């Protein structure tokens, strides 16, 4: 099932020709209309004619999150204010937000990419999408919304939270498809369980799109098994339209990144050197079709790798692995690089602990992992709890090569998140 079969199955050669043509346009557009790029090009002694092949992209400067902040609100705009029709912002945890503008055409292109993604997972016009991402300045919900409407689905703009109402909406309107964060999906599952609802009998769910937080394969399986649905991994970021940058097809083995709209590179975050396909590094994206805000070599801070080889679905756009972590999420304990997702992966494989966890860093050589035990599996025996703690400690140690201190907590102690969850508490000071 394809939305734009000719472009989704385009030959690599034709795709690369298209990419270079669009890259040249984008570079020209950025250079002419955005003082930030003009300045950088002059500093690096780059002229427009220097970008003649795809490899030449490596000569171009990176754009960072800080650049977008520094030029907030209008500094990165390549068109006049009359031409823009939509604003999204992305607030970091600190400092100024980033402003992302869309022209009418940009809104339509973003919707088109979503339409490709949805059709790829088998949706049809009679499907009902319950969109549980945050509507508003955040791109997650609106961009998905427009794409799903383009396909002709019924979209329920539920937004996140108010879980009992979500459940009622799902039952009343026979929701088949969810767009949801992984942590909220897990929370929704626990609420259904508490209410004694059977996801298979009491609902008509068929699939869910999970995005906006990194999560593990174990979490996917857990959610798939609980709801009896297919879970597809979705990747996007506000700076690159939001969702729909890369998405899983029916193979559920890596996300096709729409290379006619973006050029992707994977680099070493420390040196900036490009890495070959298959190797882990930071994803860097260049927009190819954006009018309002062309962005060159954007440092996403997301760690992934390009999956080598062709996908069985026939699409020629290369795939990236699920996000392994964020360069910002990475924590260093005893000199070892650790991503919270690695710990999550371990915990998901242990029946007697709940989904919630917290990592507390108090010094540079000690990390504490706090987990909640599962109420139903508590049998009153201290030695069983001690064994459980030892088991968790050992499994985490073999995954991250650092022995953590594991604390067993009473269920309900850790904060429940209905959005992006805060997993790491860093109390260390330099």
């Amino acid at each position, binding site marked *: 099932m394809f939305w734009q079969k000719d472009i989704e199955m385009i030959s690599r050669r034709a795709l690369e020709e298209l990419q270079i043509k669009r890259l040249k346009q984008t570079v020209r557009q950025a250079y002419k209309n955005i003082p930030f790029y003009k300045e950088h090009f002059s500093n690096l002694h780059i002229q427009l004619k220097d970008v003649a092949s795809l490899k030449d992209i490596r000569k171009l400067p990176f754009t960072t999150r800080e650049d977008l902040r520094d030029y907030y609100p209008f500094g990165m705009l390549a068109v006049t204010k009359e031409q823009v029709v939509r604003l999204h912002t992305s607030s970091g945890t600190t400092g100024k937000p980033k402003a992302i503008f869309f022209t009418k055409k940009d809104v339509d292109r973003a919707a088109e990419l979503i339409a490709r993604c949805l059709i790829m997972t088998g949706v049809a016009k009679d499907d009902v999408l319950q969109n549980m991402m945050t509507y508003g300045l955040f791109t997650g919900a609106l961009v998905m919304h427009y794409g799903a409407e383009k396909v002709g689905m019924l979209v329920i703009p539920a937004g996140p939270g108010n879980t009992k109402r979500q459940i009622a909406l799902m039952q009343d309107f026979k929701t088949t498809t969810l767009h949801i964060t992984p942590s909220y999906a897990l929370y929704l599952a626990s609420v259904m369980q508490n209410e004694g609802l059977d996801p298979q009998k009491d609902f008509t769910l068929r699939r869910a799109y999970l995005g906006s937080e990194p999560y593990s394969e174990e979490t996917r399986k857990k959610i798939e098994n609980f709801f009896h649905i297919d879970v597809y991994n979705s990747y996007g970021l506000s700076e690159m339209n939001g969702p729909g940058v890369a998405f899983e097809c029916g193979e559920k083995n890596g996300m096709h990144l729409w290379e006619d709209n973006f050029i992707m590179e994977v680099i070493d975050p420390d040196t900036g050197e490009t890495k070959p396909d298959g190797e882990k590094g930071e994803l860097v994206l260049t927009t190819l079709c954006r009018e309002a805000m062309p962005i060159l070599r954007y440092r996403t801070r997301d760690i992934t790798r390009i999956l080598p080889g062709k996908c069985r679905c026939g699409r020629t756009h290369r795939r990236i692995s699920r996000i392994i972590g964020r360069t910002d999420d990475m924590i260093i304990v005893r000199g070892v690089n650790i991503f919270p997702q690695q710990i999550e992966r371990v915990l998901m494989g242990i029946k007697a602990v709940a989904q919630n966890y917290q990592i507390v860093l108090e010094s540079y050589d000690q990390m504490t992992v706090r987990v909640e035990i599962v109420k139903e599996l508590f049998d009153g025996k201290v030695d069983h709890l001690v064994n459980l703690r030892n088991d968790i400690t050992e499994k985490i140690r073999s995954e991250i090569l650092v022995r953590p201190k594991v604390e067993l*907590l*009473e269920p309900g102690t850790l904060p429940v998140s209905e959005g992006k969850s805060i997993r790491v508490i860093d109390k260390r000071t330099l």
Partner: protein
Amino acid sequence: MEQLMQLSIFSENKPGRLTKITKVLAKEGVNILAINIASSDGFGVIRFIVDTCDLAAQKLRQKGFTVSFNEVLAIELVDRPGGLFEVSAVLSKKKINIENAYVLILGSRKKAFLIVDVNDIEKAKKLLQHENLRFFTAKKKGKSKTV
């Protein structure tokens, strides 16, 4: 042999937890007959013998506590030198291993029972049924209300 249930509550080992738990029991008018706390680096299990186990478990669960209960042995101890020796000699003769034990005293030292938590309660009860031991019974439980 009368069934005697022991309540176990999982608790992080920090000040105030026991207060929170016993507050629930006090409010519901649950009488605590015996208590035992076992802790291990950061967490603990608090065990109670109470007069109304089902009610206590239900109320604690409603308040979000992690609760389980299981049957234990309650063997009467005679209040004189050698009392515990006699009971433990029977247990060892029958090769019953004690997982955890504590004492329940009724009627201002009139009667004491050794609460024994074992791995296989059914097996232990069977092994002890013809031994010369007295167990906690409901009849005495009635009396215990005056404790």
